[in-house]
């Protein structure tokens, strides 16, 4: 005869206590009630004060202003925009400009950061010292200081367009900004893009197939030549059949300014330079810490298996370092995006500058505009941290398996 284990007593009161007040029990419940009352009172004060203040200052409220005509011009727009468009359009223009500068900045910051990290890890004493000096100087000066330095001192000291710094007669750098050749799409553009897309997709599929073959059947397949053929050969083939995809319109100096080509405004140049050099210093430290976090024995084990130095770094050290690098690296990307709001200091038309700056001063609707602006950045960072949690969860899962 077996004795059934007795069920634990239900303890409804205890469970209720836990649910309502955490470990602190009834005291916790009382604290919560008082806290909720205080929050309610603060919220009431805010709403009541805002209402009276808006009435006395005759400021409209609500989001109706978004449909009004903006009536000001923006010096750089990725989508068509004129002064007669609405504030919604202004918001979109600003948001796109913010995203543009963030993406360019992230690309450059990553490149510079990795190069710097390699410098700092180099066995060459002078090179690693140089990397260290760069990191120390850049990290110990405020970003706004560096931004203003590039914009007010360096870019302003550049020569006028007539004497601009000239690279191969195609790229001109002057105090009016950077003038680069403008790509013009030709008949061959669509097939070319399609070929590139097919090439990328094909190589990804091939890589997946090769990995599966390696892991499941132990069969090593060399996919290098096929990938090269897909990525380079296919687009070249379409170019031969359909003609050149792009032609470039070279900028020409006419009078006091340039005709043709596309102009990158100096504000964008300064912002990209400042953001990428600043963030690169932080990225360099993150990458260095990540690579150093991989135990020396891993490298030695790799070479004892007969792998070359490059292969060991690529196949053994980097994958383990990336696990340490990726979360703080994402954080830095997020920081760069948030820091791009410093654009307002030099007048680059980003979200904060055109929306929380110009639009706010025109309409006076501070609450709505600042709430929208903060909301955009908040959504960006919450989405990023959600993606990072998924990444961390996957890493943990793969480590546990």
């Amino acid at each position, binding site marked *: 005869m077996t004795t059934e284990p007795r069920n634990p007593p239900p303890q409804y009161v205890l469970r209720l206590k836990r649910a309502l007040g955490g470990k602190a029990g009834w005291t916790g419940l009382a604290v919560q009630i008082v806290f909720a009352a205080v929050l309610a009172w603060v919220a009431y004060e805010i709403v009541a004060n805002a209402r009276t203040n808006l009435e006395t200052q005759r400021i409209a409220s609500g989001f109706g202003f978004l449909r009004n005509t903006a009536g000001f011009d923006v010096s750089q727009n990725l989508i068509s925009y004129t002064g007669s468009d609405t504030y919604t359009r202004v918001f979109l223009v600003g948001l796109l400009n913010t995203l543009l500068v963030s993406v360019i900045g992230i690309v450059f910051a990553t490149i510079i950061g990795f190069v710097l990290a390699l410098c700092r890890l180099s066995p060459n004493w002078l090179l690693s010292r140089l990397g260290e000096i760069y990191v120390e100087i850049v990290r110990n000066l*405020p970003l706004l200081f560096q931004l203003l330095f590039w914009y007010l001192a360096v870019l302003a000291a550049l020569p006028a367009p007539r004497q601009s710094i000239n690279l191969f007669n195609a790229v001109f750098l002057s105090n009016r900004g950077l003038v680069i050749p403008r790509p013009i799409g030709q008949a061959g553009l669509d097939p070319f893009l399609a070929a590139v897309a097919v090439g990328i997709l094909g190589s990804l599929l091939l890589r997946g197939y090769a990995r599966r073959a390696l892991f499941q059947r132990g069969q090593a397949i060399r996919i290098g030549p096929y990938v090269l053929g897909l990525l380079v050969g296919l687009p070249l083939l379409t170019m031969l059949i359909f003609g050149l995809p792009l032609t470039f319109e070279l900028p020409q100096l006419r009078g006091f300014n340039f005709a043709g080509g596309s102009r990158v405004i100096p504000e964008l140049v300064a912002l990209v330079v400042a953001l990428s050099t600043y963030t690169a210093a932080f990225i360099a430290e993150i990458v260095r810490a990540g690579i150093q976090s991989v135990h020396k024995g891993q490298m030695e084990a790799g070479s004892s298996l007969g792998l070359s130095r490059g292969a060991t770094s690529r196949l053994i050290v980097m994958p383990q370092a990336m696990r340490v690098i990726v979360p703080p690296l994402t954080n830095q990307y997020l920081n760069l995006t948030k820091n791009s709001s*410093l654009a307002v200091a030099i007048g680059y038309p980003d979200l904060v500058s055109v929306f929380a700056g110009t639009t706010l001063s025109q309409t006076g609707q501070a609450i709505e505009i600042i709430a929208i602006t903060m909301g955009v950045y908040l959504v960006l960072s919450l989405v990023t941290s959600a993606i990072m949690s998924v990444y961390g969860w996957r890493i943990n899962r793969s480590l546990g398996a």
Partner: protein
Amino acid sequence: MTDISASSFVRQHLVPERAAPVKTTGLFGFLRTRLLNSPTNILFTILALALLWYTIVPALKFLLVDAVWSGKDRNACLADNAGHQVGACWPYIQAKLTQLIYGFYPAGERWRVNLTFAFAAALLLPLLIPRLPAKRLNASLFFFAFPAVAFFLLRGGGLTGFGVSWVAGLLQLFDDSIVNAGQILVNLSRGSAIGPLLWGTGKIIVLLGSLIGWLILPLSWLRDRLQASGQPLWFDFVLTAAIVSLIFFALSGGTRTGQRALVGSLVTFFGIAIVIKLMGLDRGGLPVVDTRLWGGLLVTLVVSVTGIVTSMPIGIALALGRRSTIPLIRIFSIAFIEFWRGVPLITVLFFATYMLPLFLPGNFSVDGLVRALIGIALFAGAYQAEVVRGGLAAIPRGQGEAASALGLSWWKTTSLIVMPQALRHVIPGLVNSFIALFKDTSLVSIVALFDLLGSLHATFSDPTWSTPSTAFTGFAFAGMIYFVFCFGMSRYSLFVESRLNAHHRH
């Protein structure tokens, strides 16, 4: 026996001596192993040398060799007049130095700023040197007494009341506000579906408000009597001192163990009295200098020190809240921290400048500098909270459990056992966020406060000194100041870190 020399294993001749190993020490060894040990490395060394040559040499040339050291206006710094290529224009810094340090603070009152700087240095330096004694007193002076003294020194003005008046005034405001809120709820209940509920809540709130009103009646009466007397500040001060000291005395165990607290409280109040008397706060104090006149390094330091001092309690409270088991408090802390960490500081400053005044009562105008300070304190507090939380997570559970086993309450466990250890763990992290905060103070120049960077920017538009090298000179000067502060802080944090990790060294 065989002849041993017949064995082929016996060596007949001396082995020739090997060449000495490649020298790895000394200058040449160093050069050989760290700079020139392979063709790639030689290439890298040459590249690095070229880089150094093209950055250090022009920089030194600009700062020292080609620099102009004296002059009255821009003419001295023009290449035509100087007769050579002009580097840094130092007379421009000399002319603008006061603006870069004090802003437009009146010249006759600048001794007050200098005195504040001196106080800060005198209190901060002993705090930073671990070997010096009396850290507790020093820290409490720096974090509590110094801010108040600095406020009256820098801004000026006096006091008309003390504790009793302030408490009475605040309670009055609070009471009015909740009675109002209750009334509005009662009025709302008429046309609403959940009318009775609203009516009931409103009535309860009104009742609560009038109850508080009755409770504070003696206090308000006392305040009115005090204000009517000839010396409102001193009477109020003595009354506050007596009440607070008695409360401390009673709370620390009355006649049994309370003497220490009583003496401490009385000494503190005596100190406050001396400060009030010395600065003449009872007679209107020093002349008021409006914060719009403040600028330069003064604003940078005021904003960063206030940010550091105020963000610590906010951060500690939020970190404890985030680890609390009480659901509402935890949710609120998480939301608060994630919100401030998710938005850029500029939007926070815009929020503080344009939105905050709308949220405050209409008759309650807040100074521009204070608004920026509120924004920065909230922003930095959220970052500190995450650092402190890291420290709290590093403390083994056993510490807290042992404390509860000894019968300590949650407050005592936290303040005596867990928090001191946690904070000691995260000193480097805290200093890191102090550095970030110090650098971020430069952003206040965007909301029309003239900190060091803002003042520098403002001097560029002065036609008296507009030369091609003005901007570079200004940035070189301000950059050195920023670098010295930030680099100093980071080195100090490294020093503290190595001191705390002394037991890890072998």
